[in-house]
């Protein structure tokens, strides 16, 4: 059984349902002792900015800010697509805890070493 798990997320406030469920599944992965990452790309990178997710709270789920913080607290990492981040003029000094801006090589390395992945 693979020990690495990636959740790929391309949505933010343009689909808060998908953004929320992605982090719920990421929490299941990290809770199951998987080395876990959430890869944020295209619109998803906005979630990496401090404060952005504060008002996202889907019915029936914990607030997204809480889901993200719990994921990181349990050892999960958030990879943020560098070109997507730069394109949107976001601030790398205002990243949420656990987030790191990465290029494609970092993602490819993670996925190439027996990782499973799911996309939202």
């Amino acid at each position, binding site marked *: *059984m693979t020990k690495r798990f990636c959740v790929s997320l391309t949505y933010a406030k343009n689909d808060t349902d998908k953004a929320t469920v992605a*982090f*719920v*599944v*990421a*929490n*299941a*992965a*990290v*809770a*199951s*002792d*998987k080395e876990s990452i959430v890869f944020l790309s295209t619109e998803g990178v906005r979630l990496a900015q401090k404060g952005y997710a504060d008002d996202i709270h889907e019915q029936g*789920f*914990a607030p997204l800010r809480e*889901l993200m913080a*719990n*994921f990181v607290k*349990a050892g999960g990492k958030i990879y943020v697509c560098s070109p997507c981040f730069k394109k949107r003029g976001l601030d790398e000094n205002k990243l949420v805890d656990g987030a790191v801006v990465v290029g494609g090589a970092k993602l490819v390395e993670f996925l190439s070493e027996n990782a499973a992945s799911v996309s939202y």
Partner: protein
Amino acid sequence: MSHFPATPGCAAEVSPREEWDAGTMGCGELVLELREKMLALRPGEYFRLIARDPGAPEDLPAWCRMTGHRLAQANHPQYLIERRKEP
């Protein structure tokens, strides 16, 4: 602390060290919180969980297989889990 009733063919009645009624919490939220509670126990101690989420009967056995905790008894919504030996 309540006792978890023995079921036919299973080990004698055990007294869980801790218990938690998770209500309708499910999926990643449930197992992430459960993880913290299980790791707070000593190896071999038992945890009684009540989980009413409809996914729990499939999720909890899978989670136990992946993490090494032992699902001693499952009678939805009641579950008895033995903490793993490893840290």
